[in-house]
């Protein structure tokens, strides 16, 4: 069947489900004939739906350099996500996209030292960029990753972080959890404070993603360290229905998060009314 309108989705099949944390699962999605539903760039999103349950926007957590499949790390927190969490391999869903402006990985980020800072499920959109940078490793400078969660069990993609990212040359991974825990000998404390403690040099490009409160304090922390807001990027999340800048839901000021975002440079966010 041809898709005659941007709002009419394709069918996707869940080909793998990985349990990441008590409330996050990562779903691998392919078209029924075993292909990727479409190409995307890091930071872009897709609309996933289950007929009769609803449709919602998710960041694509796999890197575009993964030619075999797409992955979505999804936290159980509403109707669509609860339904997805009980879905089994082989279940079909619908998918449309890609939506939004990606991170400027092939322009602004080229040659830069990268500082990724994520909290909780906020790692999902950053994983796409991190793995893109790892794939084109010689295009980027040093990479630092600061990632924190409530507990060790809540760190998304823990295995990939430990087995792959931590073993890469030129990548420093700094993990932290909110409270001390048996079997954890790493850092304990909130992400914004940890970033300040680590005290990064201000020649890096920083990318933040996490709960609004974490973004707020980390952004302030980076500014206190001497970063300019033009060096800091984040990705936003608002209610969306169409994904193409028409339904009006994700409108903040003159911007539509689905179309003008979800990636914003932090100085651009300063120009938006405080409604996110």
């Amino acid at each position, binding site marked *: 069947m041809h898709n005659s*309108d941007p709002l*009419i989705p394709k069918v996707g099949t869940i080909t793998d489900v990985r349990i990441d944390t008590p409330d996050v699962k990562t779903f691998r999605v392919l078209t029924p004939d075993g292909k990727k539903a479409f190409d995307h760039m890091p930071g872009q999103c897709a609309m996933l739906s289950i007929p009769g349950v609803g449709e919602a926007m998710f960041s694509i957590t796999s890197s575009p350099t993964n030619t075999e499949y797409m992955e979505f790390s999804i936290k159980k927190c509403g109707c669509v996500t609860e339904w997805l969490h009980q879905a089994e391999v082989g279940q079909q869903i619908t998918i449309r996209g890609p939506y939004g402006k990606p991170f400027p990985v092939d322009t602004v980020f080229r040659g830069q030292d990268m500082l990724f800072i994520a909290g909780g499920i906020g790692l999902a959109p950053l994983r796409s960029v991190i793995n893109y940078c790892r794939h084109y490793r010689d295009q980027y400078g040093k990479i630092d990753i600061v990632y924190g969660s409530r507990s060790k069990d809540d760190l998304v993609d823990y295995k990939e972080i430990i087995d792959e990212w931590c073993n890469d040359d030129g990548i420093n991974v700094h993990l932290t959890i909110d409270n001390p825990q048996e079997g954890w000998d790493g850092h304990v404390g909130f992400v914004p404070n940890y970033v300040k403690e680590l005290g990064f040099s201000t020649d890096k490009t920083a990318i933040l993603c996490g709960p609004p409160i974490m973004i707020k304090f980390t952004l302030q922390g980076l500014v206190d360290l001497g970063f300019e807001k033009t060096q800091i990027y984040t990705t936003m999340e608002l209610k969306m229905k169409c994904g193409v800048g028409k339904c009006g839901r994700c409108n903040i000021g003159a911007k539509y998060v689905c179309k003008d975002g979800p990636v914003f440079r932090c100085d651009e966010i300063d120009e938006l009314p405080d409604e996110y």
Partner: protein
Amino acid sequence: MRKISMDSLSALFEAISGTMPLFLPVDGKEGASYKKWEPGTEYSKALNTNKSAKDFFFPQVENMMAFKTEGKNIEVLDLKEDVGPFAIFGVRACDLASFSILDRVFLSDPVDSFYKARRDNAVIISVACSRPQETCFCSAFSIDAAAPGGDVECVMADGMVYLEAKTEKGEAFLKNLEAVTEASDERAAEAEQAKIRERIEKLPLANLSTDAFGGGKTMEYFNNPLWDELSANCLGCGTCTFVCPTCQCYDIKDYNTGKGVQRFRCWDSCMYSDFTKMAHGNIRNSQKERFRQRFMHKLVYFPENNEGIFGCVGCGRCLAKCPISMNIVKVMKTLGGADNA
């Protein structure tokens, strides 16, 4: 220019209906609304319809697709229907101007094909407003109610309807209508248009100014303390958005028919509390924030993205229909300062 006598309007409607479905304002118990013409249907003398003409292109509810599910499998069924040519008679200048505002939303990339199919197939016959009302303020947005445009433009004067094609589509449409004859007395139409413009200048809202608003003024107005007062009594009923010809926010929902799931689109309102509510919270928790969003969008955000064009056409429906008598004119006068009183 062509003409037909007002007494022969039904002959004109019959002739049009012979070639394509014709819709026109018809009086009902609670005011006028667009209906399909059938023999005996009378054209309403009301200045405007209760609901705007946006329904023709952006219907209040429309099915977009269906899903057939079997076990773990899903099939997507495209429910888009073929649209044939149709005519709308009696569109006023304000509603006509709203179409080009809606076009900027639905026809910008990626094009909304549901909207486009209907837009492409419509022949729009506008009618100049011989009797503008005290709630009218289209002139504030440089809309000329005496010369509304469209594919064919009508001016009613001295018991006659003067019709002028404004597009190629309109020219072809008029050519095929034998009921209308060549008019050599254009002056009568022009005289009526001059009178209409005089009447509009004397309307109570004739001097409403948009000068204080436009793109780039987000920070100037967003934190204005006057929003509290303006929105204090807003019920969040959404009537303003539903009667508004330019409000275009929509929802997409699934409905289980018992035989399968249909996905439909329907009008929604930024005035509603759940419009931006998601699992992690709501960015606009108070009615003040939702009220502000609607007017900021029309007066600042939309012009910022659309070369200064405002998201309002001055039709006055919200002035007539709001249950607490709040409306965009009061917002403009209150925020716009003393010059706009």
